[in-house]
């Protein structure tokens, strides 16, 4: 993992998650802003996947379990897809809140991925 990219990803996922939860609780239906923010979270996850595949060849290897890392990454990639799919089918305020839950879920998962990559051997 690349440190600055990971922080960028955490920032985007956290802001997108909070934004969608606030707008959802305020009664907004899923719109371009909230679904776009979630799509951006997904795009960064795909970039992270490419980074994770390429990084070991440049000497940037994971200190922790690679299996655990990829389980988190693949799970995280599924989450925004499911949430946006839901938002397209069910156009209610709660779908916007669910987009937010997905964003915060990705936030936690990326943070765990960062821990697995960097701080092992506790």
């Amino acid at each position, binding site marked *: 993992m690349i440190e600055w990219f990971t922080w960028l990803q955490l920032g985007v996922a956290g802001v997108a998650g909070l934004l969608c939860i606030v707008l959802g609780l305020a009664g907004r239906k899923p719109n371009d802003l909230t679904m776009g923010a979630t799509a951006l979270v997904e795009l960064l996850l795909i970039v992270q996947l490419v980074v994770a595949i390429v990084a070991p060849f440049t000497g940037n290897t994971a200190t922790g*379990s690679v*299996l*655990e890392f990829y*389980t*988190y990454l693949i*799970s995280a990639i*599924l*989450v925004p897809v*499911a*949430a946006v799919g*839901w938002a397209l089918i*069910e156009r*209610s305020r*709660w*779908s916007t*809140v*669910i987009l937010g*839950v*997905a964003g915060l*879920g990705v936030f*936690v*998962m990326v943070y765990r991925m960062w821990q697995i990559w960097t701080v092992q051997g506790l």
Partner: protein
Amino acid sequence: MTAPSSTPASTPESTAASTAAGAARSSRVTGVGRLLIAVYGLLALAATGRSFVQIVAKFDEAPLSYSLSALAAVVYIVATVALIKSGGRWRRVAWITIGFEFVGVLVVGTLSLLDPELFPHDSVWSLYGRGYVFIPLVLPLLGMWWLSRTGKARP
């Protein structure tokens, strides 16, 4: 909150199923119940992923903890499905799985506090689900509250 009556009464599902099942379905699956289902789905995904890693990579280290993780993951998946599905039988399945989770998090949480040797490695329910920001402790309560609330809407 969205009123259950906003769902058209003549959807294929409600005409196919009995009226009672149709009513239970629309009241359980709309509104804030959607959010509950989504969070259950997320927890099911997290628990499944974690127990997959534990069992593949290090099952021998703590068979009890990791078997519990796998069991919990399966129960979360069944609970998610049961909350989505309609009908009396799935409702009962939802009650049983959510009740099981609540008992599980209380028993394993207490045991892991009293006798840490028993669960040397984290399971979903260790220390009342601390590894999952206590979501495993709170979610069954919300689930049971939701089931009892929607239960009153049934004839």
